[in-house]
């Protein structure tokens, strides 16, 4: 009974976390789409990307918020899909955690990379 209750509470918390992060992502993705359309004109180049991002604190803060919202949102969705598709496999938790850590670590590295331009 206690365990079922705490699982339900966890599910409710995860549901809320995914919806709150979705609201943040809604705004971030809309802005990101506009940046994509702006950035792809004439192809992508390192110089062009770094020219926009290097030393730009606003860009770095925006994209780190984006990374953090992804870190919350994507693993919960992945866990839900895995749990529904393979309920007895025990895959949902470990795979969701691996995805979460990959997003957080690689995402933050990417933000630091484009902010510093490799000049650390």
């Amino acid at each position, binding site marked *: 009974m206690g365990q079922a209750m705490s699982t339900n509470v966890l599910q409710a918390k995860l549901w809320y976390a995914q919806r709150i992060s979705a609201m943040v992502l809604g705004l971030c993705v809309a802005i990101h789409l506009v940046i994509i359309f702006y950035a792809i004109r004439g192809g992508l180049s390192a110089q062009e990307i770094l020219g926009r991002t290097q030393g730009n604190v606003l860009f770095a803060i925006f994209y780190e918020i984006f990374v953090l919202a992804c870190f919350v949102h994507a693993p919960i969705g992945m866990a839900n899909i895995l749990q529904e598709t393979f309920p007895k496999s025990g895959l949902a938790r470990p795979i969701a955690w691996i995805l979460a850590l990959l997003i957080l670590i690689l995402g933050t590295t*990417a933000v630091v990379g484009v902010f510093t331009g490799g000049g650390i």
Partner: protein
Amino acid sequence: MRSRPSLDYRAKSHLSYFAYVCHRFSGLLLACFIPLHFLMLSQSLRGAEGFQKSLTLTDLWVFKFGEWALVILLAVHLAGGIRLLMIEFGPWKGLRKGWIQLSILFAIVCGLLFLYFAS
């Protein structure tokens, strides 16, 4: 084995089932793509030259096609996600079927804009 309820063809032929499948499919693919996207961008730590070497990969047509598909998936997931938030938190009632059509239209427009700007 699956824990989802099994649905018959009437439920599956409903437009909101199509919206559900699109949201799942796009979300799953985006989740798989995001770590790779970040890995590519973190190559900027190697400086402009090292970063450029990695970016030349994106000139291959497979990557161009992939980018185009991902922009469409991102648009699908964004518009479908806003519809879900409106159903769950918005003041309206119902399945917002008009929003599904609007989401499809939005994704098509984003796909075309990508082609327009990339060419």
